């Protein structure tokens, strides 16, 4: 999967590039709009991460030129300005998604993956990770052939993490996906829920599957 980052702020481009590479993407960067547009026209990228405030040619122009030339590369817009008009304008010009700075890298990664996956894979219904098995249809979780009883929310939480092993989920994303709370809240509800889930899924076993990425969020994977 090839991603082009068009961003004039060197530090931002740097950490985005580094993070995405480490997550298995092949990444190029452009530090102004014109170079970015050229690169997009000449190469076949799967995703462009496009900043709006850019020298030479701004993000809006890059996007509209791109769409007018019928290049359907997916575009994720980045901006420091959070106004509804901007959001609407971006989507009307043909952007696929929109992120406001400051954003969590895990959030950007999740959105990028969603965009790249869009219209392809169907949700996996049976998940196996180490000795843990999840049946999404029957709502059954077993570990080491032992049945684990989870509440509906605990099950939803586990399923969310386990469907994308290794991916870091921020508390905000978890609250959004599991409880439909579409805003940042300053409670530790998510931490409590994770603790209770671990209590049932991980604590009795030596091989831990749910991991805390301090300050960022939680991830599910077999590390041992």
């Amino acid at each position, binding site marked *: 999967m090839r991603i082009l980052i068009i961003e004039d702020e060197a530090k931002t481009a740097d950490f985005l590039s580094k993070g995405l590479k480490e997550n298995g993407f092949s990444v190029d960067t452009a530090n102004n709009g014109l170079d970015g547009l050229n690169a997009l026209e000449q190469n076949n990228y799967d995703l462009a991460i496009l900043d709006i405030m850019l020298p030479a040619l701004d993000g809006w122009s890059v996007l509209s030129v791109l769409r007018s030339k019928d290049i359907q590369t997916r575009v994720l817009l980045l901006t420091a300005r959070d106004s*509804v008009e901007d959001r609407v304008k971006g989507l009307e010009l043909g952007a696929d998604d929109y992120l406001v700075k*400051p954003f969590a890298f895990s959030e950007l990664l999740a959105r990028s993956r969603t965009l790249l996956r869009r219209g392809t894979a169907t949700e996996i219904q049976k998940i196996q990770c180490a000795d843990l098995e999840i049946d999404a249809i029957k709502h059954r979780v077993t570990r080491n052939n032992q049945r684990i009883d989870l509440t509906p*929310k605990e099950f939803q939480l586990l399923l969310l993490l386990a469907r994308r092993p290794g991916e870091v989920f921020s508390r905000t994303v978890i609250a959004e996906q599991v409880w*439909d709370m579409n*805003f940042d809240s300053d*409670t530790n509800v998510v931490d*409590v829920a994770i603790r209770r889930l671990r209590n049932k899924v991980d604590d009795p076993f030596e091989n831990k599957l749910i991991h805390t990425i301090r*300050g960022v969020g939680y991830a599910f994977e077999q590390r041992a």
Partner: protein
Amino acid sequence: MPLNNEHKPSSLQPLARKLALLYATTTFSVLLIASGLLYWSILDHLQKEHQSLLAAKIIELRQHFKDSSLLDKDLHDLIDAEHHHSEASHSSAIHPGIPHHIFLRIFDEQGNLLIESNSRQAIPKSLKYPVVAEQDTELIAIIKTNISHDQQFLLGTAWAATESDNSPRRLLIQGLLQLAPDETLVTDYQHTLTAVLIFGVLASAFTGFWVTRRGLRPLRQITETIQQINVHQLNEQVNSGQWPKEIALLANAFDQMLARLDQSFSRLSQFSADLAHELRTPVNNLMGSTEVALSRDRSPEEYRDILESSMEEYARIARMIDELLFLARAEDPKTEINATVFTVEHEFEVIKEFYDMLAFEQQIDITFNSNQVELYADRNLLRRVLSNLISNAMRYTKAHGSISLSASYTPNQSIKIIVADTGSGIVEELLPHIFDRFFRADKSRHYDNQGSGLGLAIVKSIMELHGGQISIYSPDQQGTQVELLFPTKIEM
């Protein structure tokens, strides 16, 4: 402020001039009408005086005939003497300076002229005296005749009864009084009136100008005071209590506006100070820990620990920015909400589900009662309101306490949602500040345990976006009760 000073005189004088002009025109009209009326009534009065003068003369003659019963040669003397007498005493006493030319004639029954007084001037022949019936010796008829503008006459007629040679006779007396043309009194009066008019108008224009300037002096003083006021002196009082009532009212209104401005201003600067302070702690932590970390080589675990700790600070700052942006957006009057109709019951369920695990751990009971209320609002924003309120309530409620949510219709069909807890409540002095940004009731609480201090500010701004109201009670500091009042769909 030289610019403002330049404007001052030009903005003051037109009003003074205008008012002076207004005074002058008003005075002119009033004086004109008043003197016109006076002039008319004096003319009327003069004419009546002349009439009674003529009548008195005729009556005198008639009396003379009655008494002396004689048409003798003394009569000449009488007519002329009386005439002169009347001129000398009567008229000069009552109407100084008005000459009266009373011309008298006496006829017998057959119409023969018996006697007439000396005429000092030409008397038109065509004058028509009033006619009186011969038998009527009591009546005197007087009419006014205008020959021309200069020649106006009063004509009087009367019959007198007398005796001649012991037989009753009747004599016809005719009197004529010429109203003198250009009577000096009237002319004088006209002159005086004109003078009064001119002087009155000038005087009133002048006093009007003076009075207005004087009256407007407080206004000028107010202007000067206001010009002195800048951002740092918003608490200055314009109303010093020495001004007339009208100006004092203006000054008072201005003071009230200043007070409101002062409040907003200090709130704003307080907010800036608070914001800087809020940023100081995490930035200080970040700088310090990074600096210390870089001062020597460390193990990977140590680096990781420092980075993780930094990440927490970053997240805190990022959320603060998010919330401040939300507040700024909510203050923008153009911001629209995405309102739909939904049952409150479902929202209560969702929010309870979200907080249930935390509540269970803290041994707090969350209950709700929605009474089948339907609400027209932005669903996500309502969740945010409820979430912030419950999160707050949890922070101040001890184990075995409870938080209850309830919804109901008010008598006027608004929707009331109450979030009540059995927590420690709020000290009454703090209630007015509770919606301020970065306000925290418990200052001693540890930094990591605190909320952002923006939760209630966000709740309030969301209620304002809905055109609703929020109030907080803490009766006897036994728990806190937050009341949300949503208007009905039609009112929004």
